[in-house]
């Protein structure tokens, strides 16, 4: 059980503070924030999500730039508390539509109301947005957000037919005009990790996928979600060559798997709010969306040249967004001169002096295209060792909407309620993001 719950802004201000058991001193937010802030200076790296100061255990998760914190003196399950914090954040987001400091401050009474029902005397009661609806009376003050945070934001670019605010509306607030729009979102989000060795071979690759659902349907109809029939789980469950093989997966508790083994269909009555229907993990080889080539050569006593080539290996109808290539350069790098290919549009280059890092941003990369960057480095001191050991590895981040690496698909999305004339909007969207996309020199 937990003793206190609080939310801090990035600057360390208390936005909400709920003391459930009175076992931990009131000044805990200050203690906590000081510790987190100085962790980098005292030790190294970020503060771990769980730590102990003077017998008090502090748990925290970062959501949308805010720190959700719980304290306790008891030796509890860290996994339970961290999950509870994460879920509390999600419930609050379901109600507020947008989760940020501003929406929190405007709605803190509603947040207190939620916190009272989610946790009582430190024990989790319910984190179901649905159940909470009957206990919560404050109306959310909806914040108009230009840039929604969280997984929703990745769909904002590229998909023009999507109403921009759809996924950021509150589950309880009504649309302007008083009518609720019947719609359901199913998002297949895949985060990919690939490591290439110096000769371009793939050393490791993994896909971490989630099928995320957010339902705004009234009357809680049952939904059937059909996936590829050739989907295999584990190597023992082989369904022919070319099949999508999941190493493992797990499901939301509302999911019924009665016919999953037969036809790969999930049936569920989606609860209100956002939740993951299924998480899965794939280590089966897949075609990486980008090929990267990087070269660093000494060209003189105090000079070297870096050449980076990026090739988009996906269909030309698809674009990758917000591509960023980064590479640590040798410590003694003093100056960098960049040379972009002629006619490059939307490219940015930068040399981050402080951490000696090269950054190359590409706003949009069309499938099938190739881009090259040359950078001439000047050193302030002569290098001793092997220059290859002084630079790299190169890493890349990107988002590719309407593309998924695993070929896992939602074949159809069926809503049981058919009697009414109107047909709810159904959105099935795919997106691939880089988690750790690294090329070694």
């Amino acid at each position, binding site marked *: 059980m937990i003793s206190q719950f609080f939310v801090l802004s990035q600057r360390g201000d208390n936005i909400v503070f709920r003391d459930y058991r*009175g076992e931990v001193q009131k000044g805990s937010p200050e203690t906590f924030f000081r510790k987190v802030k100085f962790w980098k200076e005292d030790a190294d790296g970020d503060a771990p999500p769980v730590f102990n100061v003077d017998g008090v255990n502090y748990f925290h998760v970062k959501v949308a730039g805010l720190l959700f914190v719980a304290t306790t003196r008891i030796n509890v399950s860290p996994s339970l508390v961290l999950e509870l914090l994460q879920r509390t954040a999600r419930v609050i987001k379901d109600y507020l539509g947008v989760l940020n400091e501003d929406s929190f401050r405007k709605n803190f009474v509603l947040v207190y109301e939620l916190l*009272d029902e989610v946790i009582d005397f430190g024990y989790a009661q319910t984190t179901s947005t649905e159940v909470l609806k009957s206990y919560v009376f404050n109306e959310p003050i909806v914040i108009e957000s230009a840039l929604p945070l969280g997984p929703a934001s990745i769909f904002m670019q590229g998909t023009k037919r999507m109403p921009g605010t759809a996924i950021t509306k509150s589950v309880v607030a009504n649309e302007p005009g008083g009518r609720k729009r019947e719609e359901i979102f199913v998002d297949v989000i895949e985060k990919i990790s690939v490591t290439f060795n110096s000769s371009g071979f793939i050393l490791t690759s993994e896909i971490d996928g989630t099928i995320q659902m957010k339902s705004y349907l009234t009357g809680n109809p049952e939904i059937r979600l059909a996936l590829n029939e050739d989907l295999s789980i584990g190597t023992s469950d082989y369904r022919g060559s070319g099949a999508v093989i999941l190493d493992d997966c797990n499901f939301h508790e509302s999911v019924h798997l009665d016919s999953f083994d037969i036809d790969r269909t999930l049936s569920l009555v989606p609860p209100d709010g956002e939740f993951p229907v299924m998480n899965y993990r794939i280590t089966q080889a897949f075609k990486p969306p980008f090929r990267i080539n990087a070269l660093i050569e000494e060209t003189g006593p105090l000079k070297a040249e870096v050449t980076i080539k990026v090739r988009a290996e996906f269909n030309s109808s698809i674009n990758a967004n917000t591509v960023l290539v980064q590479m640590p350069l040798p410590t003694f790098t003093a100056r960098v001169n960049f040379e972009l290919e002629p006619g490059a549009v939307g490219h940015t280059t930068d040399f981050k002096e402080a951490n000696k890092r090269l950054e190359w941003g590409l706003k949009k990369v069309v499938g099938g295209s190739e881009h090259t960057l040359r950078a001439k480095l000047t050193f302030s001191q002569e290098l001793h060792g092997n220059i290859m050991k002084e630079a790299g590895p190169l890493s890349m981040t990107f988002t590719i909407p309407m593309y998924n690496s695993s070929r896992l698909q939602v074949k159809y999305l069926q809503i049981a309620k058919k009697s009414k004339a109107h047909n709810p909007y159904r959105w099935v969207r795919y997106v691939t993001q880089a988690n750790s996309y690294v090329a070694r020199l």
Partner: protein
Amino acid sequence: MAPPPPQSNRSPSPSQPSGKSEVSDLKLQLRQLAGSRAPGTDDSKRDLFKKVISNMTIGIDVSSLFGEMVMCSATSDIVLKKMCYLYVGNYAKVNPDLALLTINFLQRDCKDQDPMIRGLALRSLCSLRVANLVEYLVGPLGSGLKDNNSYVRTVAVIGVLKLYHISATTCIDADFPETLKHLMLNDQDTQVVANCLSALQEIWTLESTTSEEAARERENLHSKPYVYYFLNRIKEFSEWAQCLVMELVAKYIPSDNSEIFDIMNLLEDRLQHANGAVVLATTKVFLHLTLSMADVHQQVYERIKAPLLTQVSSGSPEQSYAILSHLHLLVMRAPYIFSSDYKHFYCQYNEPSYVKKLKLEMLTAVANESNTYEIVTELCEYAANVDIPIARESIRAVGKIALQQYDVNAIVDRLLQFLEMEKDYVTSEALVLVKDLLRKYPQWSQDCIAVVGNISSNNVQEPKAKAALIWMLGEYSQDMHDAPYVLESLVENWDEEHSAEVRLHLLTAVMKCFFKRPPETQKALGAALAAGLADFHQDVHDRALFYYRLLQYNVSVAESVVNPPKQAVSVFADTQSSEVKDRIFDEFNSLSVVYQKPSYMFTDKEHRGTLEFSDELGNLSINAETGDSVVPAQRVEENDKDLLLSTTEKDDVRDPGSNGSAYNAPSYNGSVPSATSQPLADLAFSSTGATGQAPAPGLAIDDLLGLDFSVGTATTPSPPPLTLNPKAVLDPGTFQQKWRQLPISLSEEYSLSPLGIASLVTPNALLRHMQSHSIQCIASGGQSPNFKFFFFAQKAEEASIYLVECIINTSSAKSQIKIKADDQSSSQAFSTLFQSALSKFGLP
């Protein structure tokens, strides 16, 4: 009314109002609204209440508004009511007199028609935390527990717990625990049931210190009827309550194996839950239920691997860390099960360093013959990492792998490449590692010394690295041409050396060098002793004085003290005792795993929670530290050591080689059959020509180096005069207890003969064979190629017992042995006996 006390925790943000003037302003406005019945009053009240609560949140004391807030609370607006309840709950404790004012309207609301209002009022009533108001709680709580609405009942159950914390006697006198117990077993609503369980666990745990009945009730919760009752309803519970139930089940002791399988079958689908907390709780049940069944236990590891890995990669980074910490614990306990999953433990460049550290340790643990090359290659990539602490850890990891492997060829090359990378921190870490490596594998000295000799001591600044370099200069001074001169120049700069550790090493190294190359070192020795005697650091001074007097007394004695025949270190002392590790395992799915410490090291006794384990060992150590509520970590560790000493019967005779310090005490100790009687110096010389020259057999180290010379049945040593009781008996309970208590005294790897492997179709074949050698099996299991056995044996004429964990991999024809013994001094002899018996397996 008293003025508000000065605020210590004022808002850190400068944009917030100073408070005082605004509070009095709010007070005025609240007063105006209190009696008003004009339309729109509620809306104005809402705005005002929000301001009050906003101030409360940022730490401004608004308790002086208590009276006004209560006056304004007469309303039917539920949003207003909730805000008022929140305020009252926060300040009632500091304003007990005024809190009395609220009792009236709260009690009235407890009888409201709307169950929402009843529940809310009851929750607020119980949250006042004012001792002299408890009499007003009993009535509403009693009817709340009988309410026909489940929401009110869930609130009432937690209310009972709140009452208990305000006034335990009132709660007990009202017989509430008994009511809760009834509700727990009969209520239709699972959240009511779950809350009853939480409340009763807390109440009975606290009561059990004074009441035997409460202690009995608490124990009863782990009994079959209760556990089955909860298990049968498990899927009705919320995911949080499922965690609660599974924590209870993990402590249940089933009567037979079929019961264990029934429970595991029932809970298996919980491993596919998206909530990591549920998955971990299930994992704990599986692990704890199967502790006594070695083979099933191993299968459990295999079963939980995939779900845990999925949890690590699917959740938020924080949640992923919590799961990874548990996976780390499992990997450390059974690395061989995870050896093919090593790629999952590769670090990603964007991971926080606390995650990387865990992964590096896991990579180190799972390294074995088949994956070492790839793991070490990966680790070498991290050594050039921009994140210097991680780069250091990676180099250390390479070194650790080198120390635990027998095929160190490739690794030594990599380490030496580190030395040539010319990065300060890389050189430093690599030097320390090369030193450790040489202590274990002296035969590598030629290769290492050639590279180390090229490193200028001026380029090494870190004390640890410098000390390592100096140690090598002293130890191998006959092989390093300029050793005396390097040492001499170091002695000349004595005053500039700030680290006492380095100066201590320097003294010893000069002494060692002196006995090997007297004419060249004499001058340096004189200077070093003089500087040492004048040193302000006590230890340095003492050591210099000691050496001086030793030399004065007898030079040849001095030589045998400083340059004794050395035995290679077989196993470096583990940082954590196996007893501590087992205790952490007992506390699976708790903070102990994340902190890598048992709970008594970081919690006060009263906060140890329901996870407190009840076996004798635990109580023993917990009792040892009662008296102080906050025990400094240092003292607790000492207690822990005492405990260890008391549980091992003869601990004084230890393998001198396993001494962790860089300076080994001279090993005159006759109790160890020291076959390497030739001085290390000779060994190093003689190995110049033939590295393959084997030291005399009979020592553990030979087996570790087994790959260098012919292996298999040919090297079977003749059994020493240790005889075993052919009819030894030990019950499984005692075995488990002993296994937990005793430290590992030997950990080795043998090769098996091809004939033996061929005969090992079923575990039983080996059991019968070992039995014929007076070694009994207590548990066995596994499937080809991995088998696991637990053996025990007893000395023929004493009660002294040996315990063995033996893991055999038939594909690699290797067996890993861990020996624990009552009498540690004879464990070496026993190991030889065991190996001899094992090597005869399969022979006609």
